Each structure stands twice: as structure tokens, then as C-alpha cells.
């Protein structure tokens, strides 16, 4: 459809109507005030136009009116307060992924999106998701800052190097939607685009199982666990065990306590000396440069599979 001419984006997530309702409110306020100002300016400009070149300046000029000043200070204040709380309410909920969300991993690199599903299925510049299921994206970048934006879902979040960011949404309509990189990331920025395919759960299941070459992410992580020799320490008690680790609070040697989440595991693999678990010597070498971001995600998935049996990570 090369010359279709849309004026309003599709609403395809639970978030979209909420954002749009707020958008309508702001637009109504904006139109009201723009119209007010425009009409007043036009009306005054015509009514009080200078009728002759030598017309003297008007007499008895009104130059102050405190009630008026108070009115046009207070009314905008009330309006922006409504906008703020309404917006903040949606923002806070849209920022926190629910616990029952299905997790998908996204890696941005110049200039493509690399997506990995928990059963090990991968795709490039495309994201297949089931409809009516909350999806949580755990995202990181291999190089510069990107931004994973799906306008039809009214959602976007920057994707940063050396850090995980998350965004979540729940699609409400099957279909094919734009996926953009919204943060300028160098030469091919405008080519870093793709599609989000929202499918019915059955279709999604079929898609997910078709053409999966190998193991799930957790299984691939287990292979890496042996391959990189993690087992020689973490499987023998020389280093902390991974069983039941994920989601627990870990006490560190400097007295601090941290929650073992994705970011913690990633940091421990790449910068092992920065957070030493209490009671263990700092002997682990860094794996920075040896494992890719993708492999870190697989190792994390493996550790998760050991420790979060009681909680469903989301695969439907």
C-alpha cells in the first residue's frame, strides 16, 4: 500500500488506548487555548485597528488586573496538574513489567535487531509475539545506544550498551506493525527497521516450533556452562552455586546485598571482581570479550532455569 495516507496510528496494545485518551485530552486543551488566543488576537486586531495615521494613543489604559492575572495563572496550573498525574499514572504502570510476562531477548547492533525467544528461536529485524499475552523485552546493545520503538503499541525504550533495559506491552490485535530504531545510532540508523508480527496463540506456537535448529536458550546456556568451564568452580563449591540463585538476595563481601537479577548475572560474568559474593575468594577471571551478549543471555537463561522453577518465566 504505497500511497495510503494515514493520519492516526493503529491502536494495537493495551497501552495504546490509554495513551490516546490522554492525547485527546491534551489536544482538546491545546485547541481550546490556541483558538482562544487566535480569536482574541484577531478580534482585538480588527476591532481596535488604528483608524487614521494621527490617531492619538488611547486614554484611560488598563494596565493591570490582579484577579485576571491570578485566573490565568491558576487555571493552567490545574490543567497541567491533571496532565501530570494522568500521564504519571500510565507511565508508572507502563514502566513495570508484570511478573507473568513472557520474556523475549533483544540485542541491538549497528544496524539490526536481533531477537531471541526462550526456546532458542532467533530472528532478525522481526519480532513475533502472541496476542493478548504480556511480553517483556530484555534488551541490550552491542555498540551504541539504540531505541526499540513500536508506534502501534505507543511504547519505546532506549537500548543501552553494557546494560539491560526492559520494556513491556500486551498486543490486542493481530497484524503487522512497524518496529523502528528511534535513537540515532550512526550511518544506517534509518535502515534499522523491522516488523512486529502479532499472531493468535495457536499461530504463534506453530511459528515458534517451526524450524528451531537446536536447543532452548537455557539448554544452550547449559552447554556454555560446560564449555567455558564454569562448572569447575560453580559446580564444585569453589564458587557460589547457581541452584535457586535467581531472584534471591545475595550478600556481597563489602557488606552490601543485591538481588540476583539479569543485570547482576551479566555484571558477574563480565566484571567478576566488581561484586564478590561474601565468603568466596575473588578468583574468577573476566569473560569480557570471550562471551557475546547473546551468550550472556543464554547463560542467564540457564541460571534462571535452575533457580526459578516455582515461577513460570512465561513460555505459554
Amino acid at each position, binding site marked *: 500500500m504505497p500511497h495510503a495516507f494515514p493520519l492516526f496510528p493503529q491502536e494495537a496494545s493495551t497501552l495504546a488506548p490509554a495513551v490516546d485518551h490522554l492525547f485527546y485530552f491534551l489536544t482538546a486543551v491545546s485547541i481550546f487555548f490556541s483558538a482562544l488566543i487566535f480569536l482574541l488576537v484577531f478580534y482585538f486586531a480588527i476591532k481596535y485597528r488604528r483608524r487614521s495615521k494621527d490617531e492619538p494613543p488611547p486614554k484611560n489604559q488598563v494596565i493591570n488586573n490582579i484577579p485576571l492575572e491570578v485566573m490565568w495563572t491558576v487555571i493552567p496550573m490545574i490543567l497541567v496538574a491533571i496532565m501530570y498525574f494522568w500521564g504519571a499514572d500510565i507511565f508508572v504502570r507502563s514502566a513495570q513489567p508484570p511478573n507473568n510476562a513472557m520474556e523475549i531477548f533483544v540485542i541491538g547492533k549497528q544496524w539490526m535487531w536481533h531477537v531471541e525467544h526462550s526456546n532458542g528461536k532467533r530472528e532478525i529485524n522481526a519480532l513475533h509475539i502472541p496476542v493478548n499475552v504480556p511480553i517483556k523485552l530484555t534488551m541490550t546493545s552491542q555498540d551504541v545506544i539504540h531505541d526499540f520503538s513500536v508506534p502501534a503499541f505507543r511504547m519505546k525504550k532506549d537500548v543501552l550498551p553494557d546494560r539491560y533495559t526492559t520494556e513491556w506491552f500486551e498486543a490486542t490485535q493481530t497484524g503487522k506493525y512497524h518496529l523502528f530504531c528511534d535513537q540515532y545510532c550512526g550511518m544506517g540508523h534509518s535502515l534499522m527497521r523491522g516488523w512486529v508480527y502479532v499472531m493468535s496463540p495457536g499461530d504463534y506456537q506453530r511459528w515458534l516450533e517451526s524450524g528451531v535448529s537446536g536447543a532452548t536458550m537455557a539448554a544452550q546456556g547449559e552447554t556454555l556452562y560446560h564449555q567455558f568451564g564454569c562448572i569447575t568452580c560453580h559446580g564444585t563449591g569453589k564458587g557460589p552455586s547457581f541452584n535457586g540463585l535467581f531472584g534471591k538476595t545475595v550478600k556481597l563481601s*563489602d557488606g552490601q546485598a543485591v538481588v540476583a537479577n539479569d543485570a547482576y548475572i551479566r555484571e558477574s560474568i563480565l*566484571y567478576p*571482581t*566488581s561484586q564478590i559474593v561474601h565468603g568466596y575468594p*575473588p578468583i574468577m577471571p573476566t569473560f569480557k570479550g570471550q562471551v557475546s551478549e547473546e551468550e550472556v543471555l543464554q547463560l542467564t537463561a540457564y541460571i534462571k532455569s535452575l533457580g526459578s522453577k516455582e515461577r513460570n518465566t512465561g513460555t505459554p
Partner: protein
Amino acid sequence: MIASRRKYKLHNSQAVVAEQFDDRTQQHEASSLGMWIFLATEIMFFGAVLTAYTVYRNLFTSAFEAGSHLLNAKIGALNTAVLICSSLTMALAVHAAQTGRRKRLMAFLVSTMLLGGVFLFIKFFIEWTHDYKEGLAPGLHFTYAGPQAGHVAMFYCFYFILTGIHAIHMIVGEGVMAVLLFMAWRGRFSEQWYNPIEMMGLYWHFVDIIWIFLFPFLYLLGAHF
């Protein structure tokens, strides 16, 4: 609406008051206010780096402490004392200018410059040279291999940037002071007009204050026992 009150005076023969000003008080207040505003921009200038420093110091506390331990706090304290001495001589130089004693002014300017020179000498040839040899200069020669080497490198980045900008300010100050010394020698200053000396004093004390903060931030981070 507008009446004429005073004719503006053209060039004052002694060049004590520049032509855009009405009198000496106005000129003095303007230059002092201008100098203070300039110092306010300097506060923001250093403040931005210190903000970045504070952020990282809180993120990587132990690495920053480890980095700080490798610095010699004794030399840092010595340099602080040197700079405080130079501040005193600068204050006395301003005093000499205010009371119109040319020889005293020149003597104190020279001693301020010498003390500043001592500070820079210690900085360049004792501290930085030592840090470089020890492999603590990120980007040039960094060989630190202890835990969290990357974050220790970050500490040294800030160490060099902060002390570097400070040293640049010192060098600029020394240069301007040399000009002022020349002017004093030519007898350009009097009890009537010593604005440049006073402004120089403000600048020099400000550079001193920056160091007063850098010293604990960089050298005394964490405990030294």
C-alpha cells in the same frame, strides 16, 4: 520626560576611569561584579566534572578508594600548604597595592608566583611523573592489574582531568601575574587604581579553593590506615 543632568566626560587624562564609566566607584563595582560572575561560571565548570566524579564515586566506591590509596596524601597535603602560602602572599600583595607600596607589591607578586611555581613543579615532576611511571595514566600508560582495574582507571581519569584543569588555571594565573608584575614595575598601579591586582587576587584565591576541595576528593578518599 528626559532632562539632561550631566554632560558625560570624555577621556580622563590619567586613564583611571575608562570612558564608558562615570566614576571610579562605578568602574570598581563593575569590574568586581564581573570578576565574581566569571568565578561563578568557573564554579559551574568545575562543578560539572565534580558531579560526574561524585556519580562514579558512588557507583564504584571501592575502586575509587583503591585508586586514591595509590596517591601520596603527604605530597597532596604539602601542596595544599604551598597553595595556602601563595594565597597569603597574594592577599598581602593586594594589601600592598591598596596602600600604594610598589616595592612590597612587587615582592609579594614575585613570591606568589614562586609558590605557584613550586606547586606546579611538585605536580608535574613529582606526582604526575611518578604516576606515569607507575602505570597509572589511563590512555597513555596504564598497567594497574588489581581488581576492578577499569574503575580504578576511571578514578585516574578524573584525577588527571581535575588536577589538569586546575594546573591550567594555575598556569594562566602565573602568566597574567607576570604581566601585572611588569605593569607594577612600570609604576602603573596606585592607591587610586589597582583593579587588576584585586581581580587577580580573587582569581588566585578561587584557584586555591578549588584545590581545597580537590585535595580531600582525590587524596583522602576513604581511610588511609
